[in-house]
Each structure stands twice: as C-alpha cells, then as structure tokens.
C-alpha cells in the first residue's frame, strides 16, 4: 500500500490535498492562494449584503461618541447568562414600532420581522465585540459580529466566511485570546427553531435566581417579562401560566443547576431542535411544573452517553451518574476544553469553574432522590 504506484488516482488526489492543506500549518505562505478563495466564500455567505459594515449604522446608539443607547432600544439581562470566559455583557432589543412578540407558545416566542438584538462583550473593561441579529422580512435572521477597535472608536463588521471558527482573535493579555465567531458559528447555536436565545420567559422572569452562576445585577431600566406584558410588547401570554416563571426544584442548588444548563446547554439540547434525535433535553419549559418530571432528569440521569468521558475512564459512559460527578460525561465535558470534548463546543476557551462546582453539587444531590438511578456498580 505504501508504494505510490499502487495508489489509485483518486487517492493520489487526496494525498496532494492533504499536503496542500497542511501548508499553512507550517506557515508556508498560502495567503495568496487564500485570497481568491475568501472572496468566493464571501459570495456564498450573504450576511454582508444585509448587515451594515459599521455597528453605528445598526441604530443601537443615538450618540455614538457618548455611547448613549437610542430611546427605543430596551436593555435586558437574562437571569441565567451564557458563560463566555468571564466577559462582561450588555444586551439590548428593539422591536419595530407598533409590533409585539407573540408569546402564545410561551416556550417559543415569535418575534416580528425587523426585530433587532445586540449583545456586547467586554473583557477587562474594554469592549471587544458586539453581536447582532435582525429578523428579515421573510422570517429568516441575519447574524453579524462587530469588532471594536482597541480605542473603542469604531466597531466594524467582522470578516465572515463559511468555514469553521474563522474569525478575528482579540488578544486579551495573559496569553488568552478571545475568538470572534464566524457566521457559521452563529448558526451553530442560533438555529431556525430557536434563533433567539436569552430573551425568553424564564430568562426575563422577575423571580430571579439568586444562586445563578455569574448572575448579573439588573441594569438600570432593564425590561422583564411583566414589563413587556404591561406595555404590550409581549402579547398572547397563555392564561393560567405564571407571569414570573420559576424552575421548580427540590433545592436551591437544583434550581440554579437546571437554570445554568438551560441557559448554557438548552439552546441546542432540547426536544424540538435540529439535534432532538439525541434525546437529551436540558432546556426548561413552562410545562416542567414538577421537578421529578423534568426532562433533564429523564434524558440524562442514568442514560448512556455516546460520547466518552474525556478522562478516558473505562466502562459504559453515562450522561449523568447520580451521586458520582466524576463519572458523569456531562460534567466531564464541561470540565474539558479539548476541541473534541468540550461543552459548549464553541464560544468558550476557559472552563467555568463556578458552574462545574454547582453541577457537581447537584449531581451529588441526585443520589438522594428516591427516583434517581443509583451510582454505577461496575467500578
């Protein structure tokens, strides 16, 4: 097999491909080759045709120099924020005049065309990026990322390509780098079933969880669910459903743990998304009235995991082993930042130690539930 004369032409092609692919790994200078290709990718990705080149043209700020947000832009803060390596975040939403969010399905709000959302990321006191999404007239969403200059005088549209994790790295000091997501990465989390994450009934509940990891103090003037309903920006809230949704749980640890998993994992791991076939539902629903009935327990605790434990221990892996954090794949992948193991799989390069400790405590607590599967016996 090693004799090249026996290798079919097609395989020879792959060999050449491999060699050429590896060129940039050694800094062999493929930049000239890449330029025309990037232009082609740009053509495939229609995002730049719709998102302004400059953040200031999205309408977020009424006064760019003073960074005063426009009067018709609402600030909000989810009670279970997504972990992004300790970034300080600010979030805003604007609905077109005269429109409202249809909340008749309280778990899947329908946003009017033209809805705009922004999320600003800052590290060490400096704005680094602002992510932006807007609903188009045809119901689809455009996604963009604006990268701030070091002096925060400009925030320009990030290069977007169809490739994975092709973005602009921002040096944060201390050897850490914050990666700006590609447009493809945007869509990895913001899928068609749940495009808007973090602006939902539970996240905007006035009954905020004091134990939520990295809970943020409410910004001045922040809107919540009750406020949205009172001013008519959220309509058709189903009768009989609490206006201040809260995760039912046996303990404060369980409440916070489920909230964290909802906010950080439930965007993908839910029962109605593109990967619903995994049958792993970490999202909270208003239907989850009883903690014992929560899908998170039924689909995770004691359930086989297709992914191995990152630590490589032997035995059939389980997603969560009640009372045994070290043998729970879910926690093991949260603890990992190896590219093939880490969870979430993108958007973070630093383990969330506070969350790991919280989930470990919750898994320990699960051992005390009479209905929970017991510890593994094959150790």
């Amino acid at each position: 097999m090693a004799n090249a004369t026996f290798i079919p032409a097609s395989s020879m092609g792959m060999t050449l491909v491999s060699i050429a692919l590896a060129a940039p790994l050694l800094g062999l200078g493929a930049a000239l080759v890449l330029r025309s290709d990037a232009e082609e990718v740009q053509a495939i990705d229609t995002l730049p045709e719709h998102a302004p080149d400059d953040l200031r043209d999205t309408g977020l700020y009424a006064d760019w120099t003073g960074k005063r947000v426009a009067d018709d832009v609402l600030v909000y803060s989810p009670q279970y924020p997504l972990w992004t390596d300790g970034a300080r975040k600010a979030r805003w939403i604007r609905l077109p005049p005269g429109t409202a969010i249809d909340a008749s399905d309280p778990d899947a709000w329908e946003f009017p065309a033209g809805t705009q959302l922004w999320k600003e990321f800052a590290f060490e006191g400096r704005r680094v990026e602002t992510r932006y999404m807007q609903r188009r007239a045809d119901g689809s969403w455009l996604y963009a990322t604006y990268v701030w200059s070091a002096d925060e005088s400009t925030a320009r549209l990030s290069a977007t390509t169809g490739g994975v994790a092709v973005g602009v790295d921002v040096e944060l000091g201390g050897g850490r780098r914050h990666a700006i997501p590609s447009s493809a990465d945007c869509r990895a989390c913001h899928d068609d079933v749940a495009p808007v994450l973090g602006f939902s009934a539970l996240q905007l509940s006035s009954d905020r969880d004091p134990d939520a990891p990295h809970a943020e103090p409410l910004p001045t003037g922040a809107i919540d669910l009750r406020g949205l309903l009172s001013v008519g920006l959220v309509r058709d809230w189903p009768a009989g459903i609490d206006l201040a949704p809260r995760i039912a749980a046996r303990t404060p640890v369980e409440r916070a743990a489920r909230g964290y998993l909802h906010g950080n994992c439930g965007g993908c791991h839910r029962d109605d998304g593109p990967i619903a076939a995994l049958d792993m539902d970490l999202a909270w629903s208003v239907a989850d009235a009883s903690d014992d009935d929560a899908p998170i327990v039924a689909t995770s605790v004691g359930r086989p995991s297709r992914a191995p434990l990152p630590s490589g221990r032997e035995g059939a892996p389980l997603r969560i082993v009640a009372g045994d954090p070290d043998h729970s794949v879910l926690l093991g992948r949260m603890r990992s930042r190896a590219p093939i193991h880490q969870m979430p799989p993108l958007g973070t390069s630093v383990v969330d130690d506070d969350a790991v400790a919280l989930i470990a405590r919750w898994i320990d607590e699960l051992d005390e539930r009479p209905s929970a599967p017991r510890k593994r016996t094959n150790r």
Partner: protein
Amino acid sequence: MKTTAKLLLTSYLLAALALFSGCNASAAQDAAAASAEPTDRASRIERGRYLVHAGLCIDCHTPFAMGPNGPAPDMTRLLSGHPADLQMPPPPELPPGPWLVLMGATNTAFAGPWGVTFSANLTSDPDTGLGRWTEQMFVDTIRTGRHMGKGRPILPPMPYPLVANYTDEDLGAMFEYLQTVPPISNRVPDPIVAQ
C-alpha cells in the same frame, strides 16, 4: 494549546477551501445546473448516489483493501468508515521537512499536525452510522463544519468547505441516498487531537 490548535485548524480548513475552489467552483455550478429538482424520492436518491459516488465520499469513507489492481475501496464495507477492529498504532513521527500528513492503508485514518482522524460511518446504521440523523443535521454539518451542525469541529482532511458548495437540494439528495446504504455496524474511534 487550544487557541493554537484552533488557529491551525482554521488555517488548514481555509487552505482546503483554497485548494478546492478552482475546480470546485465550476463543479458546483455544473452540479447546480444539473440539479433537476427531483420530484420523487427515487430520482432524488439517484441524484444523491451520483454525487456521493462521483465525489470523494467513497474514497475516504470506504475502507480500502488490496485487490488484483492494487488497493481499492472494499464495496462490501461501503461507506462504513474506519474499521473499528483496525486499531491504528501511534503514527510514526515524521522528520523535519515537507512531509506532513500520513494516510493509513485503508485510506480511513489520517495523521497530521492536528492529530489523527478516522473517517466516519455514513451508512444507515442507527447506532454507529447516520441512521438516526435528519437531513437538517447532515446539511448543517456540512454548512457549519461541526458535528451534527452544532458540536465539535470536523477535522482534516474532510473537505467540508468543498462539499458546502453544493446546494441544499444536492446535500439533501446525498443524505437521502446515504440513508439507503445498507447499515453496517461499525463504531468508528473518536479522533485523537494532537497535544
């Protein structure tokens, strides 16, 4: 290491796109032009079979075996990926120089600066192949370069930027054909990421 690995992977994949773009741009256009918007499942499957077999899918996702004319895909293991029972030893360390990538004799294992990749089982087997996948998962995987469209990065040498040039209809046809490939239970090893 993670950032470095990501950068390397990024460069790698960009290069993959660069390499393929010249020939692929016209190929994709031809493919799109040739797409006749199949109106029934049979013609869609046939379209998918054509794309999968005419493209490079067969080469890396079907183990090679030595035959009278040299190594060739073993069609009895069509699209079943790297054989689970073929445990690869650690790849030999290459000396400094222009040699960078190693390929296993089955053409289903590849070693390079990113680590070791084993080609996936694309048959309809529900537990080890694509049997439980949906068309959307398949299309999203190609579009995002991530497992199931959401998970870990797809590793070299999978030229997903090339495949991403196909239309949604063509990708859907490929998936529909793959769902007809007889299931072969073969749990492909997880990739090994270079430390």
